[in-house]
């Protein structure tokens, strides 16, 4: 965007100046502060981390060990599990947020009582601290004393150990993640749906379209940009999710709800700095490899429509 503005300005004003000046009305050192901040805080650490992932280091010294960290990281038994779990977690939370977010948005853009209030209620969990939500739900999901299982017990159902049963732990956390994050998805969808011009709906009504046809043929395709945003945001969020899982299960019981980020964190905690740096490089590559093509794909479809 800035490039566009500059050229337009430059050519309009001083046609007689040498071409180098025409391109930019600002001196180059104007970029310096931003460049320094970007370089020191982002570029240097990124490249340093590529280097340190090839070493075994403490805070004082490092020695180069080649790709050993990566070899070891991929032999880490918790990692394979963590990899699968990360994918499951990312897909489940992202999918649920898309479906629930869209449905809630349709509901909350229709003419219902207390619409403004309901919208803020849906959005409220987004504002609460993740750790707070995690700890609260850990208490609620306690198999013996938790409110959820006690409520289920009154109707005669014996609830599972939500966070202690290896087959439920990850999905329970994903459920809480969806509860906490669906508000943002809803908000994006509401914005998407509201921006659809009313003329379409009027035309559809004239053609005799019902609610389902409205949803299927108007809202769904025209809210596509919103869908793309929600998928990308929640998938990235899901793939690098850590805080909620750490607050609720710490990857447990055992390693059953470990995700890549929690595996990396544990290596760091244990003082295996080189190994955890290597893990972060892997995570970076994996997230890029999934999200970049996905974003290309989704955005291209949008243009073709």
């Amino acid at each position, binding site marked *: 965007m800035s490039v566009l503005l500059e050229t337009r300005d430059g050519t309009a004003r001083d046609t007689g100046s040498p071409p180098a000046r025409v391109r930019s009305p600002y001196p180059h050192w104007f970029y310096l502060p931003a460049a320094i901040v970007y370089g020191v805080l982002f570029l240097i650490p990124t490249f340093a981390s590529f280097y340190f992932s090839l070493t*075994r280091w*403490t*805070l*004082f010294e490092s020695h180069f060990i080649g790709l050993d960290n990566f070899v*070891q990281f991929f*032999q880490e*038994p*918790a990692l394979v599990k963590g990899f699968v779990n990360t994918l499951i977690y990312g897909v489940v939370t992202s999918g649920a947020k898309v479906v629930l977010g869209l449905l809630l948005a349709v509901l909350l853009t229709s003419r219902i009582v207390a619409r403004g209030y309901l919208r803020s209620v849906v959005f409220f969990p987004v504002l609460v601290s993740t750790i707070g939500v995690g700890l609260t739900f850990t208490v609620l999901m*306690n*198999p*013996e004393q938790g409110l959820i299982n006690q409520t289920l017990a009154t109707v005669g159902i014996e609830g599972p*150990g939500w*966070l*202690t*049963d*290896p087959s439920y732990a990850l999905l329970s956390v994903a459920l809480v993640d969806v509860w906490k994050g669906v508000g943002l998805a809803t908000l994006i969808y509401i914005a998407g749906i509201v921006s659809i011009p009313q003329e379409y709906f009027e035309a559809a009504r004239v053609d005799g379209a019902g609610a389902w046809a409205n949803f299927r043929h108007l809202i769904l395709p025209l809210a596509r940009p919103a869908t793309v945003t929600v998928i990308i945001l929640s998938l990235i969020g899901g793939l690098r999710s850590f805080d909620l899982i750490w607050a609720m299960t*710490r*990857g*447990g*019981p*055992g*390693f*059953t709800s470990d995700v890549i980020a929690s595996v990396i964190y*544990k*290596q760091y*905690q*244990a*003082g*295996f700095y*080189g*190994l955890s740096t290597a893990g972060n490089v892997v995570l970076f590559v994996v997230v890029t490899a999934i999200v970049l093509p996905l974003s290309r794909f989704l955005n291209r479809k949008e243009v073709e429509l």
Partner: protein
Amino acid sequence: MRLKIALAAFTAAALALSGCSAGSLGSSDDDGSGVTLSFMVDNSDTNSKMAEGLAKEFNAKNPGIVVKVETRPQGTEGDNLVKTRLSTGDMTDVFQYNSGSLMQALAPTKNLVAVDDQPWAGKLDENFKTSVTSEQKLFGAPFGTYNAGAILYNREVYQKNGLRVPTTWDEFMANNAKLKAAGVAPVIQSYGETWTSQLFVLGDFHNVTAAQPDFAEKYTANQAKYATTPAALAGFEHLQEVHAAGYTNKDFASAKLNDAVEQLAKGTGAHYPILSGIISQLLGTFPEEKDTIGLFPIPGDDAAKNGLTVWAPAGAYIPASTTGEKLDAARKFLAFIASPEGCAAQANATVINGPFAVQGCTLPDDVPQVVKDMQTYIDKPGASSLALEFLSPVKGPALEQICVEVGSGIRKAPDGAKLYDEDVKKQAQQLGLPGWS
């Protein structure tokens, strides 16, 4: 006027600077003549009370020095904090930390001040000396008491069911069967706090050395493994057997230390494999159970070799960043900690969990039954050994998760042991030990 402003600015800058300098927190409020020592301990109930007790007595005896206690989190979070602050030269003037393998991981020769030359060094118990020595240098004064990794049991429940303290694993399992039939949860586990899961493995070490005396040495040199040494594998197998037989409490997966302690004190559970030190927490809530809770070692195969696995006390260390008059004061404080007066100050501050590591320190007469039981094993020659983490710097960080998996039936014992051997490899490589790369 201008001078005044300049002066004010200068003092402000100086204040700000001194605020950042290593370990001088709170130094602004002494009157100039004295030295203030900051002393960091973990925030467990027992340790923070002991530290406060030590500081109080020491301050009363040494008018020129003020010791101020700071607390830090326990567990891996605390380990991280200590390592980071040491690395950045920002450590408190004196700090408490584990002895044994965890102390070795601090790179003591680089980060800590050696205390060999101190007069009290000769009065320390040998086992403790071993666990705070690195490259032939001694680094810490004993903070707290010996601890045992053993089974705490409810003596009333034992009496009611006519049971005898088991000396072999088979006897233990037979007791468990009777207890289960009587409606008592035989073995309490509290995997809600993962560190508590490790005792069947770590507390079994006396049995391992009894069967193979050179295990620790070979283990450090990458020549002995948990998975391939039957005596060492036994710990994992026990963990699995107890779960498979349904001997654990119903809420083992989510129970926390507090819940477990309550079940033991109330007698709804009979055995709790744990560190003996938690007795002070138990007595904090259930003071009337002082003589109800007893202790026996984790039994092995051979009744004749039955014995206790003990944990050396934590150490109080001086970081290399402490210099000048603070260093002199810190040495004085360590000398106090390692003296009979220091032991008395700790004993007055909280319930004592076990014997001290300083010669000349006596236990008060009213110690809980657990400590009396412990003492009988420690006094008997050959009936106690230091835990592996004091004999070898090799300890993997994931043992607690592995134990939770084996103890909840998610993973089989041999597989768990193999996984732990892998975990340990990373630690050994990070420490740069010979024979592991």
